[in-house]
């Protein structure tokens, strides 16, 4: 016993029974082999024989140790084991698989010692063999675990990278393109394809693929029996391990797998958070395949599922983002469309504007049909247009029911939608369109399209009403202004009405002239506030009221007072302005009054034009204006011309009104001797042009048909007709016999024509002065120009003109001088001349 009472390790303990050394050798816990230097086994213990199943006789003297090894082991024995033993006389813990008698392989660890003879030559090899079965399997497990850990790490890394990329993918397509790249690096897949669920089209749309597609790269209907649809419907991961397995459930897939050389296919649903009804919300399916049969471990399956969730969430986010952006785009589009439609007032331009908005941004083809007028109205653009007959049927159906047809399952163009354009419960027409490629279907966009159609319907209805009112107002106004102006030998009235430029509504401007009594002429010009049909009807009422209220006794001020009372009952006439004048044709006295209206412009035969600024009071029914109606009387010399006009003539945005007044006076003065016919129109032309913002009315009253008619016309053949018109009226007012009148007209025309054609051949800016005088006996006409009389031999025309003059006139005198030519001619008024 040791000091502390423990066993004494320095002494060998006696075993409780006698150990037989042979027994120990044969049944030791390891195999013993003794071999000659060439490896031939000369002794082997029972333990080794028991492990390997060989009989002793099968080994001793018959086989070398290396014969018991696997081919790989034999090679290692030759290249490492034998040389090492030869060199260092011992080898330790060399792992060899020993091939047993029944072919099993026994993992072993081998120690060998080389014994040498006194001469140092190899004599014997002693080898112990330890059974390493347990240890080897442990090592294998360790190795497998390490490999699994490495694979898992790689998969997680790939997944992490994919997740990072998904976070940066804003759209569904970008998400899909990211996800489809994952299976190859993560699991060693040969290919991958991704489908996204498209609820609008009720299908799975193939959007991206990497490598050759195993399960087919095409769109799959939601209700299809194909595995992709199956997985999408169920929301479960499917692993089809072998072609045989596919054969059982999905023959079509089996065929594809065979064709593309795939052994294993994985179908992974891409799921977001559970939907409202509890099931997984499947947003897409990812399929990937392997060329070799591939068994996925539990941890790999977990990674696969994780990929499905991550992708699903990214898709969900992208979908929400897409939705939000789409909503924003639509709202902006609708607002912009409403604004664009408001810019044009009339119906057809507005319909075209709508089509311009829709094509190509929303639709690749669109047509607006409106049930307006006998033929209806059509505006369309884009292509391809659908089958016209089928479209016509659908348009009729939509117009009748007022219900949109977003698709047409029966026709040749199922993707053409027909929407009603409604306003105030009435179907005004239809909007048909084919959605632009890349846009969602009309059914999916139904809310947006309905909103668009509603806005368009309202805008088009407003345009239609505008159009209708405009037409009525124009008709009304024209009918009111179309009356023939009175005319006799003592006066002449010339008027001009010019509607506002382009698309503007009619205004309430009007003019009128009428005989109150045989000797008293009333002339009026006025302007009702506002535009459109209200203004036109009010104008008509005021016009009638003035005709009814005008009397020999009342006078202009009295008339305006009565109009004030009238306006109290006809509110729309309030603030209308009127210039009214009564002319006594016997005395040439004129009494006038202006109720808020621009002053009349008078030009007397001598003197410059002047505005008549007396007799002014406020607009009709004005509360702020001077209430007392005043009038003013002046005498109009024979030959005076009075111009009444509305403010549209002188008001222009780019010109102060003072300048307008000045300009009008100047232009009027320069036309002092111009024929009355066309005078107001000419003034309107000069002062406002064609494209103006307001209506313009002008009335020109020429007083007193003198014994003398004086006109100066530009050297323009067209002016001769206007001259003839004045001359004809002048002759008529003096009761000249028709035949005599015709003769004077012909002679004067010929003389003026000669002056224009020959005298001013080289000077288009020249003027021709015409003076006609009449007495009881005769008419004398003088036509003078300042041109150069150039004789052109053989000019038959001029000869004929002069000959005609000589034939129809009694006396003709032609004076040609350096300063021009003057033709004086005379004809007796008597028929028996």
């Amino acid at each position, binding site marked *: 016993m040791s000091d502390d009472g423990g066993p004494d390790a320095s002494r060998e303990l006696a075993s409780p029974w006698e150990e037989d050394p042979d027994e120990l050798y044969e049944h030791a816990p390891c195999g013993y082999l003794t071999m000659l230097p060439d490896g031939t086994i000369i002794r082997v213990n029972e333990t080794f024989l028991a492990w390997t199943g060989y009989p002793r006789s099968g080994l001793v003297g018959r086989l070398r140790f290396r014969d018991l090894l696997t081919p790989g082991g034999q090679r290692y024995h030759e290249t490492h084991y034998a040389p090492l033993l030869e060199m260092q006389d011992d080898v330790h813990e060399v792992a060899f698989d020993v091939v047993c008698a029944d072919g099993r392989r026994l993992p072993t660890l081998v120690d060998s010692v080389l014994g040498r003879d006194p001469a140092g030559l190899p004599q014997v090899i002693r080898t112990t063999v330890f059974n390493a079965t347990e240890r080897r399997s442990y090592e294998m497990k360790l190795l497998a675990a390490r490999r699994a850990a490495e694979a898992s790490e790689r998969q997680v890394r790939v997944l992490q990278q994919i997740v990072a990329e998904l976070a940066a993918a804003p759209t569904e397509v970008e998400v899909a393109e990211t996800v489809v790249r994952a299976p190859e690096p993560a699991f060693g897949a040969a290919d991958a394809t991704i489908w996204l669920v498209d609820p609008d089209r009720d299908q799975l749309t193939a959007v991206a693929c990497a490598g050759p597609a195993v399960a087919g790269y095409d769109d799959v209907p939601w209700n299809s029996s194909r595995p992709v649809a199956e997985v999408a419907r169920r929301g479960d991961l499917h692993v089809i391990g072998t072609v045989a397995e596919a054969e059982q459930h999905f023959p079509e897939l089996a065929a594809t797998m065979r064709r593309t050389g795939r052994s294993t296919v994985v179908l992974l649903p891409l799921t977001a958070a559970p939907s409202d009804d509890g099931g997984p919300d499947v947003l897409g399916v990812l399929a990937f395949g392997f060329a070799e049969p591939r068994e996925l471990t539990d941890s790999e399956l977990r990674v696969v599922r994780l990929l499905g969730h991550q992708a699903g969430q990214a898709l969900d986010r992208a979908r929400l983002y897409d939705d939000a952006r789409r909503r924003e785009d639509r709202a902006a589009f609708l607002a912009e469309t409403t604004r664009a439609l408001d810019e044009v007032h009339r119906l057809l331009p507005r319909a075209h504007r709508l089509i311009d908005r829709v094509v190509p941004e929303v639709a690749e083809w669109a047509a607006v049909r409106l049930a307006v007028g006998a033929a209806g109205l059509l505006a369309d653009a884009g292509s391809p247009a659908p089958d016209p007959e089928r479209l016509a049927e659908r348009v009729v159906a939509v117009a009748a029911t007022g219900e949109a047809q977003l698709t047409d399952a029966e026709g040749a163009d199922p993707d053409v939608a027909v929407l009603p354009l409604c306003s105030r419960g009435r179907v005004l027409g239809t909007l048909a369109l084919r959605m632009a490629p890349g846009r969602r279907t009309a059914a999916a966009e139904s809310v947006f399209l309905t909103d668009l159609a509603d806005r368009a319907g309202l805008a088009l209805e407003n345009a239609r009403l505008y159009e209708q009112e405009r037409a009525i107002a124009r008709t009304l106004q024209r009918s009111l202004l179309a009356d023939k102006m009175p005319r006799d030998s003592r006066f002449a009235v010339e008027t001009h009405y010019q509607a506002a430029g382009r698309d503007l509504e009619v205004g309430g401007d009007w003019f009128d002239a009428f005989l109150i009594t045989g000797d008293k002429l009333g002339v009026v010009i006025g302007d009702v506030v506002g535009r459109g049909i209200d203004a036109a009807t009010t104008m008509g009422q005021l016009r009638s009221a003035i005709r009814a209220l005008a009397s020999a006794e009342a006078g202009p001020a009295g008339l305006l007072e009565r109009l004030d009372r009238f306006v109290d009952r006809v509110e729309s006439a309030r603030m209308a302005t009127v210039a009214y004048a009564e002319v006594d044709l016997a005395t040439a006295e004129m009494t006038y009054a202006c109720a808020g209206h621009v002053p009349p412009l008078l030009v007397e035969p001598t003197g410059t034009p002047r505005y008549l600024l007396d007799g002014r009071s406020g607009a009709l029914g004005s509360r702020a204006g001077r209430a007392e109606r005043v009038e003013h009387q002046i005498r109009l010399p024979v030959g005076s011309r009075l111009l009444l006009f509305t403010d549209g003539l002188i008001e222009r945005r780019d010109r102060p009104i003072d300048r307008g007044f000045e300009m009008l006076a100047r232009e009027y003065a320069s036309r002092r001797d111009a024929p009355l016919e066309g005078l107001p129109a000419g003034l309107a032309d000069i002062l406002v042009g064609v494209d103006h913002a307001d209506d313009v009315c002008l009335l020109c009253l020429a007083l007193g048909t003198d014994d003398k008619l004086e006109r100066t016309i530009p050297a323009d*053949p*067209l002016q*001769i*007709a206007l001259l*003839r018109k004045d001359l004809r009226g002048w002759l008529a007012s003096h009761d000249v016999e028709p*035949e005599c009148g*015709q*003769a004077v*007209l*012909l002679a004067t*025309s*010929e003389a003026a*024509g000669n002056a*224009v*054609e020959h005298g001013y051949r080289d000077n288009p800016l020249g003027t021709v002065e015409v003076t006609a005088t009449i007495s009881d006996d005769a008419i004398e006409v003088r036509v003078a120009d300042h041109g150069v009389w150039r004789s052109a031999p053989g000019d*038959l*025309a001029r000869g*004929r*003109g002069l*000959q*005609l003059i000589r*034939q*129809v006139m009694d006396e003709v005198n032609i004076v040609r001088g350096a300063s021009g030519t003057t033709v004086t001619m005379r004809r007796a008024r008597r028929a028996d001349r």
Partner: protein
Amino acid sequence: MNEQQVSFAKLGDADLVRLVGEIDLANAPSIGREIIAHTAAAGAVLIDLTMVSFLDSAGVRLLDSLVGDLDDLGTPIRLVVGESGPARMTLKLCAFRDDLLATDLDRAAADLAC
């Protein structure tokens, strides 16, 4: 303006040209061109001047050259001027041949058809 002033029709075998309004220096050339364009291939021509309210020497020149051209072609022509009126007055003053002038349209048409 010429659209309203000139119109064309058929009366029997003859081409009928109706002139309306004033014909003078300003519009005679264009009216002339229009008539020539429409009657180049006519078998016979009737020109109705009864609605003309004024005719000056430019109009006379137009009619004169028209008659001359048609005479050269052997195409019969009549100018219908009524019993009175500005056109008749001017053409009479210019001494147009009596066989050219007719007072009645139908009779002139029948005359041409012979």
